[in-house]
């Protein structure tokens, strides 16, 4: 990788270790960035895409089949019982919602923190958020006993003149998850508008090369669609001004939103009076866990994607390394939280709480607890070593462990606290059934179907933001043409 030709003046005197890696390697021109990213959308997909799409589609159909079977037969087809009335469905719900939070974090919080490196990963992360929330949204829907009356959860007037009950965290969930989905969608769509315009214009430019009538017709249709959704964007600076302000406001709103959504998801457990659930550490612990598993999933998706579509120069190793640091930070927070729960249970002197945590570690579900600990607390510590943080295949493996660990954390929280609580007479044992497992596997199919469609039809990297952070975009830098302006005043 050749040393970039010239740095902008401000950085020449800094020592070698502190020299920031450029965000786009090899000082690529703006046009190259557009071709590189928009080219994926225009060209026809490599063969593996069709295979991957087919497999995911089948998984999705399997999942919908099982959901149909569940709804026509009853919730009994799952492994639930008394006392464990929540099982895999709720674990999967929290797991998928947790994965979603990284997207909003990257696009909103890192935007507020002026972290420029976010530009090449934020759209994929936001797309991942929306698809994760879609997968998450399925579970609260299908896990209720009478799904055809689930519309009662919404505050709609009805002939019975009775309203939902707002003290219930499940109702907060309804508002939180639907708000989160809507705001993430708006945020994602707003980010897409300029890039849709880019594709629209490229289609308009090479409309001429289309030979056959069919290509022409497809090109016209694509132009219509991309044009429609780009809202007639013409890159006017007056529009950019409002756009940037709106983007800043949305980022400003999304940051407290993402913190509140997973806090409200944690209220589903923290508001109850079960030993092991009723702890005030849950909101921060869940948010840290969400960001932790979210970044895990971002890395799991990004690393193969950057190699397949050779975007290594835009999603550089520096990006991966920074994300590993975030994983290490949040992983340690989660590890701290596990320890703190044990300490508080012991210190509080409540025998029921103490038993709940001893039972987690040594009770019938000891194996799930120790998988959780090893995946969530031990594997991120490997990122202390520079080599681990910078070799993509290793990061990919650790990111898989992160998500396995986080799924088990939710499993431990939900099932171990339910299966043994206050009265020993009502203790029970829960084991999932085939319907539990395959519905969950199916939702990965749904996630991949949506993600593959996103890669296929939409630019997976925010072109204009990447351009904006390259030296060529800085009017004061040499690459930005500062030297060309005669007597340009600085």
């Amino acid at each position, binding site marked *: 990788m050749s040393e970039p030709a010239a740095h902008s003046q401000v950085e020449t005197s800094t020592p070698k270790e502190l020299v920031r890696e450029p965000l786009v390697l090899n000082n690529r021109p703006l046009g190259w960035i557009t071709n590189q990213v928009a080219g994926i959308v225009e060209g026809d997909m490599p063969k593996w895409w069709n295979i991957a799409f087919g497999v995911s589609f089948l998984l999705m159909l399997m999942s919908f089949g099982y959901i149909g079977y569940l709804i026509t037969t009853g*919730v009994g087809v799952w492994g639930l019982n008394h006392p464990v009335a929540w099982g895999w469905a709720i674990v999967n719900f929290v797991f998928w919602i947790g994965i979603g939070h990284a997207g909003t974090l990257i696009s909103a919080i890192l935007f507020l923190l002026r972290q420029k490196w976010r530009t090449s990963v934020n759209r994929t992360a936001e797309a991942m958020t929306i698809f994760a929330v879609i997968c998450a949204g399925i579970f609260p829907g299908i896990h209720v006993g009478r799904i055809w009356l689930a519309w009662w959860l919404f505050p709609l007037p009805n002939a019975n003149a009775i309203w939902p*009950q707002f003290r219930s965290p499940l109702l907060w969930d309804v508002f939180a998850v639907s708000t989160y989905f809507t705001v993430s969608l708006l945020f994602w769509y707003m980010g897409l508008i300029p890039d849709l315009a880019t594709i629209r214009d490229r289609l308009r430019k090479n409309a001429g090369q289309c030979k056959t009538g069919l290509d022409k017709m497809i090109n016209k249709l694509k132009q219509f669609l991309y044009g429609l959704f780009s809202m007639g964007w013409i890159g006017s600076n007056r529009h950019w001004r409002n756009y940037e302000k709106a983007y800043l406001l949305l980022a400003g709103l999304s940051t407290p939103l993402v913190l509140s959504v997973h806090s409200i998801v944690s209220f589903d457990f923290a508001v109850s009076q079960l030993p092991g659930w009723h702890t005030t550490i849950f909101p921060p612990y869940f948010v840290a866990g969400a960001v932790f598993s979210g970044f895990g999933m971002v890395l799991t998706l990004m690393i193969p994607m950057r190699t397949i579509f050779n975007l290594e120069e835009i999603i550089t190793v520096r990006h991966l390394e920074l994300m590993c640091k975030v994983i290490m930070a949040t992983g340690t927070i989660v590890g701290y939280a596990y320890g703190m729960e044990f300490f508080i249970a012991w210190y509080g002197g409540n*025998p029921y709480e103490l038993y709940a945590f001893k039972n987690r570690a040594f009770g019938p579900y000891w194996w799930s607890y120790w998988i959780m600990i090893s995946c969530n607390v031990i594997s991120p510590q490997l990122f202390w070593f520079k080599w681990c943080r910078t070799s993509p295949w290793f990061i990919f493996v650790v990111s898989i462990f992160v998500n396995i660990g986080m799924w088990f954390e939710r499993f431990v929280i939900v099932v171990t606290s*339910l299966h043994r609580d206050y009265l020993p007479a009502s203790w029970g044992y829960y084991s999932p059934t085939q319907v539990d497992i395959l519905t969950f596997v199916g939702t990965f199919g749904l996630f991949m179907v949506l993600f593959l469609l996103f890669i296929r039809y939409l630019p997976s990297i925010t072109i204009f933001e990447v351009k904006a952070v390259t030296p060529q975009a800085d009017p004061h830098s040499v690459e930005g043409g500062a030297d060309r302006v005669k007597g340009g005043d600085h």
Partner: protein
Amino acid sequence: MGDAENADWNEREFPEGAQELSDDFSRRDFLKLMGASAGLAGAGMLGVGCRRPEEHIVPFGSEQVAGQDYVHGVPMQFATAMPTRTGATPLLAVSNEGRPTKVEGNAKVAGRSATDSFAQASVLNLYDPDRARVYTKNDKAMPGGKASAIDQLKKISGKTAFLMPASTSPSRAALIGKIQEKMGENAAFYVHEAADFGVHARGAQAAFGEAVTPYWKLDQAEVILSLDCDFIGTEEGSARFAADFAKGRKVAKQNDGMNRLYSVEALLTQTGANADHRLRARATAIPAAAAFIAKALGKAISVPANALSEAQEKWLAGAAEDLKAHAGKSLVVAGYRQPESVHQLAHIINDALGNNGKTVTFHKTPANEFGSLADLASDLGKFDQVVNLGCNPVYDGGTDVDGKAITEKTTFRLTDYAEDESHSVKGVNAPRAHYLESWSDARTDDGTIVPVQPLIAPLFGAMTELEVLAVFAAGENTSPRTGHEVVQSTFTGDSWERYLHDGFLKDSGYEEATELTIANADVTVPPAQAEGLEAVFTLDYSVGDGSYANNGWCQEVPDPITKITWDNVLSVSRQTAQAAGLENGQLAKVKVGEDEVEGAVWVQPGQAEGTVGLTLGYGRAGKLRIANFKYEGQAEDIPVGGYNAYAVRGSSAVNVAQNVSVESTGKAYPLSSTQEHWSMEGRPIVREATLKEFRKDADFVDHMGLGAHARNEGPIYQHPYKERPRLASDMHQWGMSIDLSACTGCNACVIACQSENNIPIVGKDQVAKGREMHWLRIDRYYTGRDHDPRASAGFIKDEGQNGDDEQHTEEWIDDPQVVNQPMACQHCENAPCESVCPVNATVHDEEGLNVMVYNRCVGTRYCSNNCAWKVRRFNFFDYNKRPINDLYGSTAMLKPSILTDWITSREKSNRPEDEWDLVKLAKNPDVSVRMRGVMEKCTYCVQRIESTKIIKKAAAGMSDDVQVVDSDGLKTACQQVCAAEAISFGNLLEDGSEVNREKANPRNYETIDFLDNRTRTTYLAKLRNPNEQMPDAYKKPFSTKEYKAASGGHGDDAHGDHEEGSH
């Protein structure tokens, strides 16, 4: 109300298109009007412009069809009785829309409204889809029903043997007398019961030389010694015994007295579980124990050598000492399993102590002059044919009796089921009438004559025993009398209507025999078998002798001791299991003599070493869909419906068998139990104390648990009742108190609740998965002497097919104490389930009830998770309308007919047609039948509260006398059926109400008090009354010591209370 049988109920067509029974021969002749709320209309929204399907209201054909004072929608009560082996349970049967749905005790006769669990379950037997419905002759249907059966009976001539179940019916005795006059030698009568309770009378006869029967008065006794006598559980008349025994257990003030129970037994029975001192002894060693006691009281009785261990003799000496100290105020009782000699010894001991006439009286009862099944089997050759009036010799006759030969010779049989073990293709098979649809009479255990009055015309035109005998007793050309005429003829009282209305004949009891003296005092007891295994046959707490095996409620109610449903087990003690290499939950082969049977092993705490407990009543053959319940995916090699203990039992006289061997087959057997964890883990859920401790510190309950430590500054916000007083009723606030000292754990309340509230059964595999639907469960914990729960394996890591496997291997379970706690919804004022329900489906009404609104529930199940007591039950499947042996398969995706049925008519079920029609009749129309996806729980019988309030308001008219108080007779179903009267329910705003008195008792406490849920159901702590002189004495109940050990030894008397009693 005139007798129901004559009223010609006109068959009604249900508006919802209820179908005729599928069999064309059956004739359904009862009233079924709109209003049986069979299904819950789930769909909320209507298509625009279209209306609900047209429905019809169908009045009666004419006014007198319904009977003078029949009002549709108002339940009516009729006095009747359920005949049992040695007497009858007087009942008030509730008839809803012409069909019996619930039975309660007739307080006028028995002095209490309580019954045992079998009476409660008997209602479901009336609607059993497997009942015989068709009269058949030589296995071909016989048109003409009862009339043609009577013609067949008339043709019977020659030497006839009558095989009859035991009964105390005066009418039957009268008919038998007439038949003996008419047929003389040609008629011989034999009585057969699977369990022989005649031993009590024979023992008394042997002791006093007169035909008398003992009548125990446990409430008069301060010290009771039970020699393998399970008077709370399997003895006949257990409801009365439990009621009298519990009177002595209730302690209100510190100086109240309390009785004391000693129990010597082989198996852990309910009586042993409630004993203050319990001695484990082999069943064959108990006669020696009786002899030892008699000798200790100065009687010249020889005790067989080395039958009792040295520790056992010390224990018995202590008990004898205590008996002597309470002469005249004590009682020794012997169980039905013990031989006659033990009963004789018991009477001798009672006589020596001067108890006779005080704690036990004797009634002059006619000696039993009928032969037994064994007699019939031996002189079968003499008879031309046998008339079987309801026995099942092939199943419960025993191995010594050739049941097959008897059925070969049977030309006429009254049969309960269409096809059971003794079904023979030859001869006439007539459906046998259930007691709720037959005319008869009986005598209770104190001899009072009670009528058995039908609530409904026989469902399948069934015949009663009296009608069959009436044919033989009829004169040459006179037509045989009907059951009603027979009973009316034997009635000797003054007013027939009053007899039927009150349900008993005043002072028609047995004559009491006074001044009885011991006729012969020298009794030799059989020798004990020291080594090897012995088998003890016992009746089952759930299905009795097998007659309730096809009853869904009985199969699914958890056994009070093992908490296992749907199966019987081979119970062995821990050491015996280790010695014989038996694994808990594995199939093992039991060999008694040369018969053998395979059953599941269950390591039972508190069982005597060297004994194997075999429970009768299971392993039924024949077309019995509940007894032989096969769930989806049940492996082929797993035996269905438990094992048949009768296959290794000689005859009904055999209760203990020697030379027994057991070896494991290694195959696992899926047992489904509702409570898999035994230890209370040192948690102050059931709080106990000894009487001495209670006298020292009355509020000992307040020093236990976290509640004792939590300062209660009161809530940070006002309860809505105070925030907006209009939301709280100023007339009624309901509460309940359960006295754990009085509760014996007999399960009657569980089945009464199931019958009252339309609770479905779910099947064996669903129970194993933890989905049983009982709203009320009885939690049974074992507590061990010097057992620190934190050290026991149960605490750390155990799971497995039978739940907690390792607890079967720990020593503390050998001599445990047992605590029972009825657990249902606590109706908290700060209910954790309400605040988490997102759709207002479970809310608090203004009278303090935690109301569960089934039609509003969408089934998120968070309420069940947030309930600390886990007393909420979820309809995981549609247990009412879909077949419980095909729950996973009966889905619209696999069977589209389900969807089309649902669209055409919401009432149509997907269960086999005959099953749905019948089971729907047993439902209580005042309680919604829940569909799948809906949560349900104990509602304090809100339907009874509402109907009592409505009756009072309707009667009040313009006046304001609308407050319901105790005198209005409002009782929840569990309170009503509890023999021990442990449950009291009532209006907290009525000062002086029974529930307020109970809650004022110092022993009153909330189970989990520190969560500030403020439960309306509170418990009275359990008191034990140990005798310090006894070798196994204890200063504190084991649970209190476990609580101290688990909470790090601190607590109010941390300064070490040393235990002086040796082990």
